[in-house]
């Protein structure tokens, strides 16, 4: 295990150099050696690909290592040559001799067609996939469909968190903080929502559930989702924005899969409801501040929650009834927001 980890660490140094100004000192021999290194790691990957215990051990051992993202997982062993190739091809500082030798080393020609551990076949597959993406993007008018992009980002975020999870929850939190700080926030929230639903049922949206049909989710997903929830529930600003900006349907699905989230969500909805006041002239409940959630949206969100599987509807009704009781148990509309909400909800649950 130790030598392997050291190799990985050394290789990530190589990758860092390949991208930077120090590549000036490389020659053809250096490039060839670097590629051979990548090939070695690929062999290791293939040898252990089917052995879950060995993989888990490696990833645990890699945990404390503060290496760059993307190289700290078992899966990273497979694509070392592609990463190296891309860095070297686009590095203007690469020494001319090395730069001249590079294309032939990457693409030796028909001789390498049959060798599946050479970079050639995998780089060609990358090229082909890139063209496929360009074509599909063109079909959609230049942008990826929102659902697909969110799903991809959610999967990649999950992979990152799993890598960092070995180093302790602090690293995972740090990553999420960085994402939240740099934004764009709307997108980050969308990705979080998608990530919390990966592998779970009652998915909604334009993609069918990718994972198991049961509500439990895989073990890996549960772990990362745990990390996400922990951060979300501990960041009031993010949580409020999350519950405000995500669509009602999506939040209802999320609430039915994660009890902790459903409690927080219901709490927020209650606090937003409490901020409404009754306008006698208009005959409806209106927000006191311009940024508050309007009546109709509140009603819609509560309705969606009531349409979710039990025990959610019961919890909603309990909250509303509790509020109504505190207010004096009025039956007449206009006196208590809780009464009116209860009246506005269809009695199905």
């Amino acid at each position, binding site marked *: 295990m130790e030598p392997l980890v050291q190799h990985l660490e050394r290789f990530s140094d190589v990758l860092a150099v390949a991208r930077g100004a120090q590549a000036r000192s490389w020659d053809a021999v250096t490039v060839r050696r670097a590629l051979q290194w990548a090939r070695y790691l690929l062999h290791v990957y293939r040898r252990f690909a089917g052995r879950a215990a060995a993989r888990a051990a490696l990833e645990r051992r890699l945990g404390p290592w503060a290496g760059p993202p993307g190289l700290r997982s078992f899966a990273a062993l497979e694509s070392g040559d592609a990463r190296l190739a891309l860095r070297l091809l686009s590095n203007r500082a690469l020494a001319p001799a090395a730069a001249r030798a590079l294309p*032939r080393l990457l693409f030796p020609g028909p001789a390498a067609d049959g060798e599946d551990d050479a970079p050639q076949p995998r780089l060609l597959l990358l090229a082909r996939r890139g063209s496929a993406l360009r074509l599909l993007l063109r079909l959609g008018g230049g942008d990826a469909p929102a659902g697909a992009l969110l799903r991809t980002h959610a999967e990649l975020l999950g992979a990152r968190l799993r890598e960092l999870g070995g180093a302790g929850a602090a690293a995972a939190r740090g990553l999420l903080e960085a*994402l939240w700080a740099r934004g764009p926030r709307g997108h980050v929230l969308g990705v979080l929502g998608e990530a919390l639903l990966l592998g779970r049922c009652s998915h909604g949206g334009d993609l069918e559930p990718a994972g198991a049909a049961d509500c439990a989710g895989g073990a890996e997903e549960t772990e990362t989702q745990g990390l996400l929830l922990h951060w979300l529930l501990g960041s009031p600003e993010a949580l409020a924005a999350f519950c405000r900006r995500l669509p009602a349907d999506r939040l209802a699905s999320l609430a039915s899969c994660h009890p902790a989230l459903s409690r927080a969500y219901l709490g927020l909805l209650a606090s937003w409801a409490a901020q409404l006041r009754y306008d006698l002239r208009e005959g409806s409940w209106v927000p006191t501040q311009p940024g508050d959630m309007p009546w109709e949206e509140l009603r819609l969100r509560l309705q969606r929650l009531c349409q979710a599987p039990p025990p959610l509807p019961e919890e909603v009704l309990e909250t509303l009834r509790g509020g109504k009781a505190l207010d004096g148990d009025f039956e007449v509309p206009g006196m208590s927001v809780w009464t009116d909400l209860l009246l506005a909800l269809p009695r199905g649950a």
Partner: protein
Amino acid sequence: MDSSLCSDLESSGRPSRRDVTILCLEMARDSADLASDYQFWLQKLSVWEQSSTKETQQDTCLHLSRFQEFLKQMYEFLKEMDSNAILERFPTIGQLLAKACWNPLISAYDESQKFIIWCLCCLMNKEPQTPGESQLNSWIRSLLSHILSTIRFNMKEVGLFTEILGYEPVDYYPSLLKNMVLSLVSELRESHLNGLNTQSRMAPERMMSLSQVCVPLVTLPDFEPLVEALLTYHGREPQEVLSPEFFEAVNEAVLSKKMILPASSVVSLWFRHLPSLERATLHLFEKLFSSERHCLREMECCIKESLLPQAACHPAIFRIVDEMFRVVLLETDGAPEVLAALRVFTWCLAEALGRENKQVKFALKTYFPYGAPSLTAVLSQRPDAIPRSHRLQPLLHVSQLLREAVEDHTRGSPRDAFESWFLFAHFGGWVDLAVEQLLRMEADPPEGLLWLLVFYYSPQDGSQQRAQTMVELKALLGRLLTLLRDGQHRCCNP
């Protein structure tokens, strides 16, 4: 250049003059062909990069495999030359390769990106003397870099994820591609289910574009779910919304085994695109009737593998395949391997029909409209299902029905006799049975059996000729049986 080269080699005494001359001529001819092709393709590429309308896309799709062939030839030609020689010969080659790279339909197709990259590598100057040559090298590297990491996203969300999370194309592409394909498949399924709701239905233009985009990509495994979804999507429009190039591309990929699809998707493909069905049948015929002889078992394997028997459970498909068999039989004058193939095919079809447990079973008449119903019904019974001792009667019955069908049409055309014979040829198992019975007979062979055999092997004989042949056959049988008996006798009484 060519003639001086030839004379040099000749004087050195090694390769024969004739060999070298042939080589020089070939090189000259090849490079002349290549030069004119080069101009053609350069022009085509320029036209294609101007616009990406449906027509341009269609034109590109039609030329994809030929352009790849050209790229392959170019590579073979360029690989022996150095950079300066290449530029002298093809000064605009950089332009051609760049245009090919930038055209996603081309770079997505099969192995085209491989040949483009190999040509670019040939173009790299190994020892650049001038700044211009170094410039070229650096340009080639940036083009290679572009080919490998080609997407530019419009949205800054993607930039965020690349920076903070440190993701690269090699991480990104497989996942994004998979999700985009899933998204499209979902869109198709929903569109299918909400047939009457026009708003959620995928517009025909979009489906056409989608099918065109798939043409270069049918052999990429990531695209298989989308190809399947497109093949099994049935819209409400009366005419076909998918591009014919799509069907052709899928068909070719399936026939050359570059892609494996479930049988139901393949059948769907053939239903929607007749030329693909014909191509698949021809492909099977090429395999069956090639120069090497195949035994029946091998034929059965080939035929089953082709999925045509399964598809032929649908009478419409069967009729087309049957028609092609008919044509081949006529053209080859009833060649024995074709007869054998027809027989095996019908047998495989019967087996496939037996396996299907659909509610609606088509009447035999739908498959064989050209035969008399009584005849069809009798012939389609399984001969080996009849116990050995009871086989004579049904055989004679078959013989009688056939004879009536053939000989009563004296007022009809010879074509009717052919139809009956063609029908009979499907069920050649009966002939085997007839031979078996004849070889077991102690007494005189029945007329009916003799007639059956003679009719099968010489359907076009007139009744006089046929009678004569029957007499000869009877005599031959007699001799054969005598020999067999004597031999047996000698074995038993040494």
